[in-house]
């Protein structure tokens, strides 16, 4: 069976003006000095397109922290890719927004932390909310697709109706309501972020009603926390099956968190071609197919749909990256997740936030 990558997540920098407590970047970040250059990214986008990739997601950190974002957009389009910019929007002046649109940007995904300024700024660790509101109105004046990305968790789910109303007011094409996924910085803060079961049920009802009401005007995507699911998510659509991520220094990963799995070595685009990494490297082959699976996954009829769930979550909770994702109700380790949920239900955590750090303050690492 051959797999063709369709999307490339390009983490072009780990630098970011925000310090969100649920950032999906790894705890150990890349410094500016190790970042791929404009011409290196150009070459990589061409290699990706030749492999079958159709969509490019420019993300970070904050992709606008690089001075060459417009050139990266242009390079993506020149390679024939659909270009999506995932941004906090901070510091995006009108002239630069226009330059990005002219360069061929197809879609902007602007993140919001809350509907209320004080709470939003607390999560972001900086004053950002007001600037986002101002930018959203300017984005809408350009002919590009506009998605509002709203990360939700225990602290803000009570304001979900207000957040949906904000999306309507800003006339976005799509609202993405994404529950925090508990990796990296979010895992550090899970005691304060994981919603209760009641909140999750309420979310489903609110989203269903909003979808019905806004049909044909605004699309709503909703990601629920997998801790409350009966079966795991098909993480990244299966390891190395349709997606790849390239970090700021050019290391190619099957997912955001893959680095936490011991014994894997990841190759980078400076020393290997993207095709070789996708097709031949041991890290991308490690969890393809079902050879690696243990029971209950191996004989499970769902294995072609969820691929045993997330390898990183299996690693984090069981210490074994080949184990069944512990969120699965069939996992012998499901009790570990239930214990976390029970903890959340029983306590009001007053732990301090662990804020994401900026890589300019950490030493370069490889």
């Amino acid at each position, binding site marked *: 069976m051959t797999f063709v990558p*369709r999307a490339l997540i390009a983490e072009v920098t780990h630098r970011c003006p925000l310090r969100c407590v649920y950032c999906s970047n790894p705890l150990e970040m890349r410094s500016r000095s190790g970042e791929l250059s404009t011409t290196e990214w150009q070459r990589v986008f061409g290699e990706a397109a030749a492999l079958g990739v159709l969509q490019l997601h420019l993300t970070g950190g904050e992709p606008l922290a690089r001075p060459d974002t417009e050139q990266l957009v242009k390079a993506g389009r020149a390679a024939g890719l659909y270009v999506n910019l995932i941004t906090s929007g901070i510091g995006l002046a009108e002239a630069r927004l226009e330059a990005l649109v002219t360069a061929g940007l197809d879609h902007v995904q602007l993140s919001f932390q809350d509907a209320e300024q004080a709470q939003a700024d607390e999560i972001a660790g900086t004053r950002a909310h007001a600037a986002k509101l101002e930018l959203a109105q300017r984005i809408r004046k350009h002919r590009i697709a506009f998605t509002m990305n709203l990360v939700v968790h225990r602290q803000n789910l009570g304001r979900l109706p207000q957040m949906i109303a904000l999306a309507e007011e800003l006339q976005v094409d799509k609202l993405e309501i994404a529950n925090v996924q508990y990796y990296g910085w979010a895992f550090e803060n899970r005691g304060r972020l994981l919603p209760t079961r009641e909140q999750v049920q309420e979310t489903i009802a609110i989203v269903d009603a909003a979808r019905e009401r806004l049909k044909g005007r605004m699309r709503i995507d909703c990601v629920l926390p997998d801790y409350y699911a009966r079966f795991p998510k098909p993480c990244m659509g299966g390891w190395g099956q349709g997606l790849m991520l390239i970090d700021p220094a050019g290391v190619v990963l099957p997912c955001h968190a893959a680095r936490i799995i011991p014994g894997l070595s990841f190759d980078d685009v400076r020393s290997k071609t993207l095709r070789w990494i996708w097709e031949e490297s041991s890290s991308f082959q490690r969890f393809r197919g079902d050879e690696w699976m243990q029971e209950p996954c191996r004989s499970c009829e769902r294995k072609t749909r969820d691929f045993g769930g997330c390898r990183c979550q299996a690693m984090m909770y069981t210490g074994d990256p080949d184990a069944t994702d512990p969120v699965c109700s069939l996992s012998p380790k499901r009790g570990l997740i239930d214990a976390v949920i029970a903890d959340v239900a029983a306590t009001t955590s007053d732990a301090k936030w662990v804020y994401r750090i900026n890589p300019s303050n950490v030493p370069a690492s490889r």
Partner: protein
Amino acid sequence: MTDPAPTRIPRLAAGCRMTQSTDLGPVLLLPESMLRLTGPGPRIVELCDGSHTLGDVITSLQSEFSDADPAMVQREVLAFLASLNERRALDFV
């Protein structure tokens, strides 16, 4: 939904465009998703460039697929455009 008037102009929504994939053939690229186009799909999408009315699109397809029943062609074009509209991939200007 009721059928839009034949004078309306179907146009791909912002951030939606067609491309040619080397192994999938014509594909409609949408924000964070894609739609493989088959049969008359690519031709219909091509005509939704903002310069043809819905009536023009239907007439063109009826003449290009003259073996097919014109009423059926009309129904299929309308159903296809309605599905794109529902996905927020197409507007009727």
